[in-house]
């Protein structure tokens, strides 16, 4: 197996061994998954995105796709990117939207050793002493409000906001694949009218639409990950966040439809993925935000340059 295969295999093994329903439920009540966190650290994921690791940055984003598959209840994107930006191997770094005075939507801000605030304009602030108000997103993931007394460092980064958006793109791509798998399994098992519901054409068509949307989303996500460090990175993230977000609307809706009432229960695991999808598509820019950015750029190039923009090599 090559290095990438080994890395993704390790991630898959750890996440699948530990991210069961009980762990996800516990995390939603505010219980931090210490053991899993320790394992991830032991296996070297904390420093994976750091320049010193000499691992290409794309690998970190591919790991996030695996994290999405298992709804990993840890701020892995923030740990990876925070350590990269600050060039240090902190225990727990949290990243939210904000500036030198504080940040909102900070995953696990309440336990973080360091909190970083990023803005669309590219400012990246490492906050000094801070106070935390706890909160959650609609998936029950901790998203805290942090108010800072001071700022330790303030830098400008062209890519920080896009990298955060890409983290959500990759998480969504993984979760979309999982939602498709769960749905495929369910429609094969659930029987009505004396046969599996997968035998009904209406259900087959729902599944075909989901499969197509998931395939498009995954292809869009992979393309954005491949654009890292290229000169179209921002624009490819824009395209991916838009395309993947659109898939989420379709796939989450159909997944629940084919799961019937069972998928609406708290007991079923489907909602751990669909609620995250609904939360992540809003974080670091909705589809509309990125569509406007991408469209403004393309319109600025002019009608006769439109095709050239689409016929990219990568």
């Amino acid at each position, binding site marked *: 197996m090559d290095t990438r295969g080994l890395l993704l295999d390790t991630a898959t093994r750890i996440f699948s061994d530990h991210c069961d329903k009980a762990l996800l439920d516990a995390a939603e009540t505010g219980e931090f998954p210490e053991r899993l966190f320790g394992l991830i650290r032991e296996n070297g994921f904390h420093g994976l995105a750091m320049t010193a690791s000499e691992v290409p940055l794309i690998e970190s984003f591919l790991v996030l796709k695996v994290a999405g598959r298992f709804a990993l209840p840890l701020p892995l994107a923030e740990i990876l990117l925070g350590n990269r930006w600050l060039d240090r191997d902190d225990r727990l770094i949290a990243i939210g939207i904000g500036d030198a005075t504080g940040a909102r939507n900070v995953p696990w801000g309440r336990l973080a050793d360091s909190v970083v605030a990023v803005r669309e304009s590219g400012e990246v602030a490492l906050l000094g002493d801070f106070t935390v108000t706890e909160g959650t997103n609609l998936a029950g993931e901790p998203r805290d409000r942090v108010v800072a007394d001071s700022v330790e460092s303030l830098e400008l980064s062209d890519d920080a906001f896009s990298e955060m958006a890409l983290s959500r793109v990759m998480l969504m791509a993984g979760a979309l694949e999982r939602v498709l798998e769960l749905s495929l399994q369910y429609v094969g098992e659930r029987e009505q009218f004396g046969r599996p519901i997968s035998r009904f054409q209406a259900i087959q068509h729902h599944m*075909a639409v989901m499969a197509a949307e998931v395939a498009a989303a995954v*292809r869009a996500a992979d393309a954005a990950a491949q654009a890292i460090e290229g000169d179209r990175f921002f624009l490819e993230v824009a395209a991916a966040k838009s395309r993947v977000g659109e898939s989420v609307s379709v796939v989450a809706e159909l997944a629940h439809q084919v799961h019937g009432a069972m998928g609406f229960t708290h007991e079923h695991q489907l909602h751990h993925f669909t609620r995250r999808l609904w939360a992540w598509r809003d974080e670091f820019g909705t589809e509309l935000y990125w569509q406007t950015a*991408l*469209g403004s750029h393309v319109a600025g190039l002019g009608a006769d340059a439109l095709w050239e923009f689409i016929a990219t090599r990568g």
Partner: protein
Amino acid sequence: MQQFDSIQLPESAEQLRGEVREFLTSQAARLSPPNSDFTTGHDPEFSRLLGGRGWIGMTWPRAYGGAERSFFERYVVTEELLAAGAPVSAHWIADRQSGPLLLRFGSEAQRSRYLPGITRGECFFSIGMSEPNTGSDLASVRTTATKEVEGWRINGTKLWSTDAHRNHFLIALVRTEPASDNRHAGLSQIIVDLREDGAKVRPIRNMAGGQDFNEILFDEVLVPEDRIIGEPGNGWQQVTSELAYERSGPERFLSAFRVLVEFVRAVGPDAEPRAAAVVGRAVAHLLALRRMSISVAGMLEQGKSPDVEAALVKALGNDFEKLLPEMVRLATLEDFTNNDRWSDFREVYSDTLLLSPSFTLRGGTREILRGVIARGLGLR
């Protein structure tokens, strides 16, 4: 789950792209009015020019006039032609599927007879699958070909055959044995000379005002014995093998592309947020679709037959082609029905909207494609 690998087009393909663009610039007069629907412009002279460049039958062996280029190079040529709105209809079917079919199943004599003319852009083919009572259920064809001493005698009616009134040959799917319990048995593909054999071709006007598709009547039409493609009775295997070629190309998501181009022109470089957002949304779709289509070209290049992946690209692509005019019309507050700055947009928008019902029908309906995908998912 279907896998669409990331593929970077090879350098050779990008070089070719430059040549195609240069050629298209030199042919500007033929490109007006540009429309990226692959069936709207039938221009034999243009096809001959393309043939002269070696851009038809590009992947075929040199022995038959081909260029032995890769599927990626073919991909680049086809997408550049469509994006520019070039009139490609005349040679499109021959290049896309009739030629590859003959290469795979045809006799040596058939290959030598038809393929070089196709690559020169002088020999055009149409498809004769559908009939009055046969649409999605292709195996139900009733047109018969009966073996006689002098050849095959054909009786029946083919319907919707695009460009049959101006192309040279038709590949018809016919019954050569009576229907049996095995619906897929006893079918054959046979070449009809549309000018010589005596089949009656009647053009049918479509709702967009075009006369592209046709009804073809076969009343005791006799064709020589050597027109059968492959083994008699093997028609079903053969006809389904065309599907990956037929369904995965850029013509399955670019039909409405010029609408976006003219929309961008009309809203200008400082587009309002509402317009910009719709442009961004469309571009995001196009980038993903194109990458998926290139992934399928990669599978064809590896000799695979990616039927399910092709159906998936076509299903997504056709829905997008229909969505695009709907999206842009609501992305401006200007009255485009009555405004000079919008006249080019209005023209291509109207054309495309009128053609749009066909996008999710031709080449396999959306519902049939969803069935193919569902089978690929193991649900059928």
